């Protein structure tokens, strides 16, 4: 299924990945999963792996405060999505669908976003998920499409809170999906795309 879906990538894409060089086990596991994605993409997907150590300038340049982190830039080079975990389990589907749009497939929400872009202020949308959450993939997909269609105005952060428990604790989360936009009141559960757009227009 992964090969079939990655086969739908249109133009080649490269993602930046930051991993922990000191933690050999995690580093090897991460590299092995990323390799699997690359090998199934017929050369269309490439990960630029950046092993981090305390002397690495990338830490500062890309403001990396945790690993692994995957960064996606849109066609204009704007950073639009960060994954704070390597997509596994139910996170694989929205990750690949985001790659498909990143590689040129048409974004369902782009038209409406462009119409409203002048009224949306620069926003960071944090989407808290877990691998077993049935509603999360659809929400991740939606927010990712919003980010990709916003010409850099919207940045999405996809956070697996079981992999990043400090973030879950910071927001005191006991339910997913859980969305925070610009640190305002959270949106809980599977929200509709028009609700997300309305919230962005309010912010």
């Amino acid at each position, binding site marked *: *299924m992964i090969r*079939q*879906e990655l086969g*739908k990538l249109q133009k080649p894409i490269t993602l930046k990945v930051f991993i922990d060089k000191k933690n050999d086990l995690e580093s090897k596991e991460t590299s092995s999963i990323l390799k699997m994605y690359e090998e199934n993409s017929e050369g269309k997907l490439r990960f630029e792996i950046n092993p981090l150590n305390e002397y690495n300038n990338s830490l500062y340049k890309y403001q990396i405060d945790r690993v692994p982190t995957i960064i996606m830039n849109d066609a204009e080079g704007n950073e639009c999505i960060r994954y704070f975990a390597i997509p596994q389990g*139910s996170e694989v*589907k929205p990750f*690949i*669908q985001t790659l*498909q*749009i990143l590689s040129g*497939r*048409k*974004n*369902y*929400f782009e*038209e*409406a976003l462009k119409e409203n872009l002048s009224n949306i202020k620069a926003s960071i949308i944090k989407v808290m998920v*877990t691998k*077993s*959450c*049935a*509603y*999360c*993939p*659809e929400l991740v*997909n*939606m927010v990712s*499409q919003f980010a990709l269609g916003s010409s850099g105005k919207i940045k999405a952060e996809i956070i697996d809170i*079981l992999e990043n428990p400090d973030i879950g604790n910071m927001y*005191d*989360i*006991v*339910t*997913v*999906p*859980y969305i925070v936009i610009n640190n305002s009141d*959270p949106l*809980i*559960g*599977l929200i*509709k*795309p*028009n609700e997300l*757009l309305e919230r962005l227009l309010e912010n």
Partner: protein
Amino acid sequence: MFNIDMEGIDLEKIYDLIVLGGGPTAIGCAIYAKRFAMEVLIVGKTYGGLIATTHIVENYPAITSISGQGLMDMFKEHMDSLEIPYISDEISRITKVNDHFELHSFFQNFKAYSVLIATGSIRRKLGIPGENEFAGKGVSYCATCDGPFYKDKVVCVIGGSDSAAKEALFLAQNTKKVYIIYRGNDLRAEPINIKRVLESNNIEIIYETNIVEIIGEGKVKSVIFDNGEKLEVDGVFIEIGSIPNSDIAKNVGVETNEHNEIKINRKSETNIPGIFAAGDVADAPFKQAITGVAEGVIAAYSAFDYVKEMNIEY
């Protein structure tokens, strides 16, 4: 994997059939419609429907045991093999225009000669003080989503259905203790699941009891029973059934019954020619994935006949 972008979607085209919904009923119908060479599109708000939140399904024939999500992945694979387009959006209004229907969402408009409403149902709420206040802060409607946050904690499941029993069994795997709080005196679950509940060493059933309030400070701390007693819990999982998601039907004049279920006949037809309904949103007596799929398939046959009789020239 489902298509969620605009690839393969033609907004100018009048589809033979647009299926509203993202669960097994919707996909079952679309698979048959596609095999009838109908131009079919699915527009679903929640891919997978409620069954995707079920941690284990053991009564879908030919599949011994699978997670709800796993079952829907198989549906997806089948749907994708037929290249059936799927859009993740919610249709808010249907209007009849000449010989076809127009379906409006906040983002796009679609056209179809026939429509299947398979929008399923949404979780029923208790409607007691504290439920809304602590939603997402200890009150949950999805054990597979939120269960992992309650490792070694004490939770309660409200309800006595098969779904409630299965939620309790799932939660019991990681929590310290699960209370099932049920207003009746005998669980309505499948006997196999009742047996599992009774054999579990960390599930306790409290019969003939309602909870009247959920109390906490920032997070859930306890529930109050109708006899005045208090039970300290960290989480409250509400599993008291669901209500049909039929608003879209009512807006276009489709008849519903006193339970808000869409009235259908044995051909899955509603009172409006060209609009069909099936699954949990319809007034069929059994609300199971397998019966929903069957009703969806019947709707596909009926929609095919309906469109064929229109003698459309493409």
